[in-house]
């Protein structure tokens, strides 16, 4: 029997609770990993490992959290993501909601894109 959406959310929630030391009820769909759950860069690796284990899939850290785009001069100028950069992000992160980020494009706010929901959608694309 295929895995249900509830089960996917439940396992993502558990991985985040274990990696970030937060409570279940803090891990809502809209919660932002960095701003709301206090994730730091090393936590991203921990989260990727736990998700791989929970779902039995292989995840490249850059697939889920493409930090390399932000340091590439092709995609960023003066602390803001360029049009090329936005196109690249859209290509690499089909699971993320980039509309709000498109308003400011400030590199310093990029982390807000990573919500719990974005992770759930990413997992769904990997499981399909």
């Amino acid at each position, binding site marked *: 029997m295929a895995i249900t959406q509830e089960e996917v959310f439940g396992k993502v929630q558990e991985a985040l609770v274990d990696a970030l030391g937060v409570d279940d009820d803090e891990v809502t769909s809209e919660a932002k990993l960095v701003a709301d759950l206090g994730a730091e860069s*090393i936590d991203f690796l*921990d989260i*990727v*490992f736990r998700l*791989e284990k929970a779902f039995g899939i292989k995840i490249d850290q850059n697939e889920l959290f493409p930090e*390399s785009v932000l*340091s590439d001069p092709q995609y960023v100028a003066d602390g803001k993501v360029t049009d090329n950069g936005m196109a690249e992000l859209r290509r690499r992160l089909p699971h993320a909601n980039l509309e709000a980020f498109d308003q400011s494009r400030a590199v310093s706010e990029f982390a807000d894109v990573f919500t719990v929901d974005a992770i759930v959608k990413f997992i769904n694309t990997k499981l399909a």
Partner: protein
Amino acid sequence: MRWMWIDRILELDRAKRCVAIKNVSLAEEVLHDHFPATADQPACPVMPNPLIIEGMAQTAGILVGHANDFQEKVILAKIAKAEFHAAARPGDQLRFTATVSRIDPAGAATEGVVERRAAGQSDFLPMAQIDLLFSHLDQSRSDLDLPEHNFVFSSNLMTLLQQSGIAE
């Protein structure tokens, strides 16, 4: 050989498992202050738990480093879990067993158990569980200007490996 918190590696199974031991000795200076006698109480030498975590980090770090022939700069990035059920005292022997959960170009996750053979006893009993996350420093994005040579696996750790019959 300062700052070595394991004495000998007993087993090293590439990319899988590493077992090391450490003897807790009253001659170790850190025990003299942890804890010293006060007006009301006698001295109570107990090995500080952070140094037991360091022992596990060295055991697991060697396991992870050896898996890539010490080409990566393996650094401890996160202590995912450290639970202690007992204290380690002078005369005890500690046995660290680290196993790899995952190794990746970006880093590695390990799980570990510390067992303690109390002075005068014959059995090792579990005393702590320590799970760690390591980062491969060059592979991860870093703004730091790092030296070329592998400063992580310095002469201290290499001496340990030689003594344990693992490295040449």
